[in-house]
């Protein structure tokens, strides 16, 4: 199918294509002129079953005289990545926006406007997105001539939310400081009585400048940054980074023991996250018994993490090329009984909550995400799988040892809180089974790391993993002297925040915390 597509692209766009090349087995890049970029994106989006998984800009003025914009499409069923690239000499050159045709592009284009200064013409909503009212409107931190240590002057602009007008419509501002111990984010509800008409989330209160800080740093140092993108997804994020670095270095298969170890840790991370999410759902409907149970099981998982690696959040386990130490060796006697105990307690508690009619009444038909919405906004992870989008990066882009392990990807169709919860419940069972298989299949001897010595400059690669919250898509471009030239991070939370805002519409205000918890998105992972 890819060949057919490439042939028809070459035929239809022969005048506009500058060059095409394929790297790292499945990454196809098509360089195209500015005028044709929108047409080509539309052509790919319409002709094959694919989704826009990333859209980013890169300041390549040192390398090829201009800014490049990359549109990455993933044909998930085939496991292929097609990236359309266009280069503009200056930020004053205008690129047409694709948002109206490809809704998933909306936030990426706004992000690029803020961070890189490239304006997309015809975008329906070019308000500031990453920037807050105190940041200068025309200071773009990801441009190479902006120094990360520079302190910009304070500005005081007015920032507007989408205004819903009508009699009896009120705005409820919530946050950025919340009553619980959670990350900051401002939510602006427009309500008529209890039902929500519109919700706009204003995020980026914890913007740390990770992408900027990673530039011009040695790739081994950037690894530690990647672990800190989002606290409870340390392993998935660092694994996505490591995979990108390994692909740049030409390592497509890490030693087998390392691959199995990575699989086990990925699933351990998924376990404690999913169980924590279910505990959160129970807490938000004041089901304290179930909350206590699941919170206890989450701690069991984290205690197991600590026993195996010394870190409850699985930090400093990965390393480009493999894993740091023999974490799993002779630990089967700890892992397997822990899984048995967890499986028993988990399934018993799940039986109890599923037979509680009051609980099911709360979660059923609350916060419905339609299949169309999930597809158009490129929703990922359990939220998408609950709405009938049967995608999982572990299957579509197999990494670590997932191609050698049997597991099922749950699929639900209703898209409500109940489906998201059931997806997570079923994934917990699958994770336990994956961990058991991986422990069994893991070869008893062999290396655990194939160190990456050096990186060729100006090569790039994607690193895709399935984090607990969904598909993680990192893109790394190496620079000179083993440094990183550009590190683009796109976490699942970035994709799912707009989905959450849509899911809330039509529900009542007191159901928002429950819907929010069923997504349980990361603020830090979104704000970077």
């Amino acid at each position, binding site marked *: 199918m890819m060949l057919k597509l490439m042939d028809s692209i070459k035929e239809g766009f022969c005048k506009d294509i500058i060059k095409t090349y394929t790297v790292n087995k499945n990454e196809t890049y098509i360089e195209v002129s500015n005028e044709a970029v929108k047409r080509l994106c539309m052509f790919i989006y319409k002709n094959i079953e694919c989704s826009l998984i990333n859209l980013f800009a890169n300041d390549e003025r040192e390398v090829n005289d201009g800014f490049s914009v990359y549109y990455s499409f993933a044909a998930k069923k085939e496991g292929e990545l097609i990236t359309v690239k266009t280069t503009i000499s200056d930020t004053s050159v205008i690129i047409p926006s694709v948002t109206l045709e490809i809704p998933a592009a909306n936030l990426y284009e706004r992000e690029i406007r803020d961070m890189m200064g490239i304006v997309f013409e015809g975008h329906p909503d070019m308000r500031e997105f990453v920037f807050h009212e105190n940041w200068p409107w025309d200071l773009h931190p990801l441009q190479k001539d902006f120094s990360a240590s520079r302190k910009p002057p304070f500005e005081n602009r007015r920032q507007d939310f989408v205004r819903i007008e009508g009699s009896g419509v009120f705005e409820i501002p*919530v946050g950025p400081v919340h009553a619980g111990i959670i990350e900051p984010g401002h939510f602006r509800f427009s309500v008529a009585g209890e039902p929500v008409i519109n919700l706009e989330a204003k995020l980026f209160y914890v913007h740390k400048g990770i992408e900027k800080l990673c530039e011009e740093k040695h790739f081994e140092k950037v690894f530690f940054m990647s672990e800190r993108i989002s606290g409870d997804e340390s392993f998935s994020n660092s694994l996505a980074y490591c995979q990108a670095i390994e692909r740049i270095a030409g390592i497509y298969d890490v030693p087998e023991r390392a691959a199995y170890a990575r699989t086990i840790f990925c699933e351990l991370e998924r376990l404690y996250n999913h169980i924590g999410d279910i505990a959160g759902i129970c807490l938000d409907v*004041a089901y*304290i018994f179930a909350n206590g149970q699941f919170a206890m099981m989450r701690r069991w998982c984290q205690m197991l993490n600590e026993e195996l690696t010394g870190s409850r959040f699985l930090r400093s386990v990965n390393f480009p090329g493999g894993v740091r130490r023999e974490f799993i060796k002779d630990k089967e006697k700890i892992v397997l009984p822990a899984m048995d105990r967890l499986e028993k307690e988990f399934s018993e508690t799940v039986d109890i909550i599923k037979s509680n009619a009051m609980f099911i009444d709360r979660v059923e038909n609350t916060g419905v995400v339609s299949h169309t919405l999930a597809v158009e906004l490129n929703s990922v992870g359990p939220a998408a799988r609950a709405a009938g989008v049967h995608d999982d990066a572990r299957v579509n882009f197999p990494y670590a040892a997932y191609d050698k392990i049997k597991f099922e990807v749950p699929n639900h169709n209703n898209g409500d809180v109940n489906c998201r919860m059931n997806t997570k419940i079923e994934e917990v069972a699958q994770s336990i089974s994956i961990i058991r298989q991986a422990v069994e299949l893991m070869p008893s001897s062999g290396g655990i790391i194939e160190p990456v010595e050096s990186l060729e400059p100006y090569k790039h690669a994607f690193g895709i993993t399935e984090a607990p919250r969904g598909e993680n898509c990192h893109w790394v471009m190496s620079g000179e002297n083993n440094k990183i030239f550009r590190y683009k991070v796109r976490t699942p939370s970035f994709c799912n925040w707009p989905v959450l805002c849509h899911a809330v519409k039509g529900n009542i205000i007191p159901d928002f915390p429950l819907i929010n918890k069923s997504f349980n998105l990361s603020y830090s992972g979104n704000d970077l």
Partner: protein
Amino acid sequence: MFQGIVKIVVQLIITAALAPLVSGIIKKLKARVQHRKGASVFQGYFDLLKLFKKDVVVSHNASWIFTATPYIYFVSILAASLFVPAIPQLFSFGFIGDAVLVVYLIAIGRFFMALSGMDTGSTFTGMGSSREMMISALIEPSMMLVLFTVGLNPLVGSLSFQAIYKGFAAPGWGFVSPSYLLLLISMLIIVIAETARIPVDDPSTHLELTMVHEAMLLEYSGRHLALMEISASIKQLLLITVICNVFIPFGSNAGVIQALGLYVLKVLVISGVIAVIEINSVKLRLFSVPNHAALAFILAVLGFMSSFVFGR
């Protein structure tokens, strides 16, 4: 006259001493179910002491209603509690003051609390006020009907709590009848809704968007908050006392010490029952609360009808 004052003082002391304990016991039981140790059952007293020592912060936009409400609420609930004493010996007002007065003393407090919620213009407190008013409009008729039906019982024949206590206090099981059982269940539902407990409201939630009772208090601090909190726990004790003395009247005509002991025991048992209900249920969807309230009302109506059919 002097005797009356002593009775009032004793009743106030009992109420103030016992009220925070009830909340503490419920919290402790809930904590044990969550595999937590939980705070001491006396933590409520320490919290109140701490709050009384703290400064009060009042919004610039608040009117006198905001500052007056804690006192009005406290006094109205405390006054109501005098008409529903712990033991019959503590009636101090004779036959003055019946069930209607008690229900409306509680309503005065609630009215001012809802006003104060809207007074500061904060979004959360306003939402709390509107929700509280919705719930109370649904629950109040059931409460009136339950108390009226009890008053209609031939053993009682009056709406005065003193007559109700006296009518049911006869030894034996004379008070048990079909209507009695229906009313007891209805009253339990009413108590849970009135005291802002799961499944109607969640007293321990941190989610400002789902709160009802707690949302109205969000703007209060210091001694104002302490007064609001202690009033809420006194109201809870008051409603539990109604159940204790009207529906479980054993031993209320015994000697003072024995009756008091039994009363405390009954309060503890009912706190346990409320905790068990909280542990096993989930907070209702806000728009399902009317169904819950309708259940209380239907039970009350059935109790009312059956008291006619069976004559008691």
